[in-house]
């Protein structure tokens, strides 16, 4: 790692102030991705602004409209334990990384990083959630802008994510056996006004919605409804773990499994 300064504010306003001054600063969530990136010298900020002491962006609650609100600084283990109102989301959080990683990594950090193989983007896009930041509210459909890219601006911090709770939902992750990241992951959520299907791990553009499957499932929520649908391998990630065609095939398989498991 290159040398940097580290600040550990306890108030959100102080964190925002630090991130907006002249020093080249980067926010540090749980660090489970950023610290390995710093070690590999893939990131080299002059200063890190550590968010782990900002208690006001941690915790889980239910809003008046029934949405499940999760603070951006909430770690995966706390979501796994505390998001019982949205079981598919709690289960997704319970299967990220390993227990020690889940005690540090945060939902806000994961979303801001938007790793093309991470789990949370699928839940956020698949639920049509709202990402609340220090500046504004961003609809999930406007938040993800491709691999490791989001609509967040410099110094903008994710304070909360609001998930409308679906009637039924399920997340299926096909793990890359060494890293445990999603080789492909599919999140299916059925709402009164339709079904959303979000896919992570597959596309070179990061998480995306599979609109054909959404249309088919909205009229018939059964695994059979998506039986004949398939995606092209073009634009899918192709690497030593699997070809683009293989990933495209997995999307179909996992979507059917998710629908079946959602019941």
């Amino acid at each position, binding site marked *: 790692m290159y040398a940097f300064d580290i600040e550990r504010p306890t108030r959100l306003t102080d964190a925002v102030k630090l991130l907006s001054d002249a020093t080249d600063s980067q926010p540090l969530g749980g660090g489970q991705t950023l610290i390995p990136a710093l070690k590999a010298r893939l990131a080299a900020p002059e200063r890190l602004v550590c968010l782990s002491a900002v208690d006001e962006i941690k915790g889980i609650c239910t809003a008046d409209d029934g949405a499940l609100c999760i603070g951006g600084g909430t770690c995966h283990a706390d979501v796994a334990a505390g998001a019982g109102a949205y079981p598919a989301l709690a289960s997704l959080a319970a299967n990220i990384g*390993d227990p020690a990683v889940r005690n540090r990594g945060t939902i806000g950090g994961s979303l801001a990083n938007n790793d093309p193989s991470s789990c949370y983007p699928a839940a956020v896009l698949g639920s049509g959630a709202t990402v609340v930041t220090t500046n504004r509210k961003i609809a999930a459909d406007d938040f993800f802008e491709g691999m490791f890219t989001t609509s967040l601006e410099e110094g903008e911090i994710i304070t909360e994510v609001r998930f409308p709770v679906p009637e039924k939902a399920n997340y299926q992750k096909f793990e890359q056996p060494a890293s445990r990241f999603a080789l492909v992951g599919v999140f299916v959520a059925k709402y009164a006004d339709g079904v959303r299907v979000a896919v992570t791990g597959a596309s070179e553009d990061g998480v995306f919605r599979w609109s054909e499957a959404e249309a088919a499932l909205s009229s018939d929520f059964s695994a059979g409804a998506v039986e004949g649908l398939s995606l092209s391998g073009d634009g899918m990630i192709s690497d030593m773990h699997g070809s683009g065609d293989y990933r495209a095939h997995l999307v179909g398989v996992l979507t059917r499994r998710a629908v079946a498991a959602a019941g």
Partner: protein
Amino acid sequence: MPEVKMTVNGKPASGQIEGRTLLVDFLRENLGLTGTHVGCDTSQCGACVVHVEGRAVKACTMFAAEAEGMEVKTIEAMAEPDGTLHPIQAAFQDHHGLQCGFCTPGMVMSAAALLKDNPTPTEAEVRDYLEGNLCRCTGYHNIVKAILAASGQDVSKIAAE
């Protein structure tokens, strides 16, 4: 250099650090607590697992500055001051849950975190919880057996495979 203060194994600890000083380096180099090991330094192997505020974390993937004011517990605090092993450590010894011993501090700290939340885990739950702890010697069977034994469960019928 900034100063960091925390409580390590029940005692106040402080030291001068750099921003980039990892918690594991602070424990090992500033405090001389070399029981916490660095295996991979990439948060894969879990040899560096310690408890921070009672929760298992990988000390190679947390900065020392982030532990400011916190309670940290390392493998050195598991045994009694007179050397009597913690029940998990004793079970590792009884059931041959270690060979070279390099991963053992992390295994014991992870096991302690598991048994705190889930006092009588199933074999599958133990294996699942150890996902982030790698052992290259034992093949895991005796580690799992030791943890089940430490939880007070009868392991006499589990064969050493």
